[in-house]
């Protein structure tokens, strides 16, 4: 290619500087990469990257720190909101977010997420819900849908035995300290754009000191769902969204926060 040809090119897509230039360990069709990128884009666009402290949780996304080039601390399983509370109280001028999966946030870490939200901690939570424990091999999560087969409910999740899948965004929205709570999906461009919008508001409620911001992202885990990526994307549309409806469940960002 001649230098003249390069000159004529218009750059339409680039990697945000905080997103590492490396292959991920994620499976084909996994949506963690999309979620990571949305977070990275926003931190750069909002000028927050240099003052961000990121809390990573247990699960596939523990390696978030390999892909987002930010100051980071690793939390024990489920404890990311407590660790993030400690970070934010210690460094109130920094931007602090935690990135958690559904086993981490909605099962073992239920107390920590509820109380961080209820206290109105100035934190942003990115909650990736793919209805399974991914890293440990696809066991049943609190978000596993009725009838969904996993390695620990091989006959399919049964309401009588395992209860109903838990709707976290609705619960978080009901708490007094929550300023923004929304659910988006990462299965198509339209939904991804909506996810970015929600994440931006969740980040803004922290930078404005208003309170707790929470975004749930419905995501695919093709490997543990035993589907190809296309089918997995379709499953989000046909099975997950009907049970986990998309949208904003609480938004007090225009009302000056919680206290």
């Amino acid at each position: 290619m001649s230098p003249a040809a390069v000159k004529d090119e218009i750059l339409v897509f680039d990697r945000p500087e905080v997103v590492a230039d490396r292959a991920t360990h994620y499976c084909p069709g996994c949506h963690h990469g999309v979620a990571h990128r949305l977070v990275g884009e926003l931190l750069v666009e909002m000028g927050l990257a240099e003052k961000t402290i990121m809390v990573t949780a247990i699960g596939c996304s523990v390696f978030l720190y390999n892909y987002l080039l930010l100051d980071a601390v690793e939390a024990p399983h489920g404890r990311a909101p407590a660790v993030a509370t400690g970070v934010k109280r210690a460094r109130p001028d920094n931007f602090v977010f935690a990135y958690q999966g559904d086993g981490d946030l909605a099962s073992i870490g239920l107390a920590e997420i509820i109380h961080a939200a209820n206290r109105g901690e100035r934190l942003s939570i990115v909650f990736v819900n793919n209805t399974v424990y991914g890293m440990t091999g696809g066991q049943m999560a609190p978000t596993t849908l009725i009838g969904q087969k996993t390695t620990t409910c091989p006959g399919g999740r049964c309401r009588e035995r395992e209860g109903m899948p838990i709707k976290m965004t609705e619960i978080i929205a009901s708490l007094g300290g929550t300023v923004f709570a929304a659910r988006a999906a990462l299965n198509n461009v339209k939904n991804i754009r909506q996810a970015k919008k929600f994440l931006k508001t969740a980040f803004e409620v922290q930078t404005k000191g208003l309170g707790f911001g929470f975004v749930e992202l419905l995501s695919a885990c093709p490997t543990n769902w035993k589907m190809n990526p296309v089918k997995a994307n379709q499953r989000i549309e046909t099975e997950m969204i009907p049970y986990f409806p998309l949208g904003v469940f609480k938004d007090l960002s225009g009302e000056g926060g919680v206290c």
Partner: protein
Amino acid sequence: MAQNKRVFIKGNEAVAYGALAAGCRCFFGYPITPQNDIPEFMSKAIVDAGGEFVQAESEVAAANMLLGAGACGIRAMTSSSSPGVSLKQEAISYMAGSEIPAVIVNMNRGGPGLGDIGPSQGDYYQATRGGGHGDYRTLVLAPGTVQEAYDLTVQAFDLAFKYRNPVLVLGDAILGQMKEPVTLTPVAKVSKAEGKAWRLEGKGKRKPRLIKSLFLDEGALAGQNRRLEQKYASMAVEAACEQFQVKDADLVVVAYGSIGRIAKTAIRKLRAKGKKVGLFRPITLYPFPGPALAKLAKAGKKFLTIEHNLGQMVDDVRLAVRGFADSAFFGVYPGDMPAPEDFEEPIVKALRRKA
């Protein structure tokens, strides 16, 4: 914060005073008897001093908040009592693995299980053997007086940052609830540069920093454990103890914390009766002051370990004096409250025993 002042306070309050003097900026607590005075005091005092107080949703959360603040290089602490400290072990293990400085206070109560709210030394093993999962150590300081509760809490913060390691202050219900005069000795201000080489503060223009305990690459975890082993070995210089009338003693009583205090009174009474007995009181339980004890063993002393449990520290005493001596043991059951007179007979008995 008043300094250089003489005050009449509880052991729990002395811990809080010490923490504030040492520049503690974040306190994460949860109610449990007999340590409630600490979070109650801190909920106002640390906020007045410009710091942060959080009453956490659980002991688990409080310890993990501590992990987060410690990763930022901020002086922070939590306090609890035995059942609560069990719940904190998860985060203590992570902090040891991630090399995060933190101070954890345990006002030991009776166990196992819910036990009671009275004094006990039942948590000696838990405190000195790591306590959580994995192979690690925390520094353990065991105050015997309310003055020491103040002084050792100050020192705990310095040691936590010196070694980038959790430090335990191990008291008991006696120490926490007992009032004594304390001199609030002045403490130098914390350097703004503390932890500058590793603390999280946002990457700014530098390379990002990562504080973690997960090491999956081949050889990485072994390397981390080797580094930690070297660090623990380097802590040996911190070993501290009180030796009382041991020089001419035929029998040395080994006891720590409140029990050391009670044993001291018993020894004074026996000395008045002409019995050649002395006291060796470990002030650091990890590192255990074994070399100082070994010296006494080489000098031909006999030993009696007295504890408020079924016999835990006596293992460390026997290890320290092995080859030269053994140690007899006298235990007070958690749930019972010993008086100096209770120790006199066992001491005399051990004194008579052939070496």
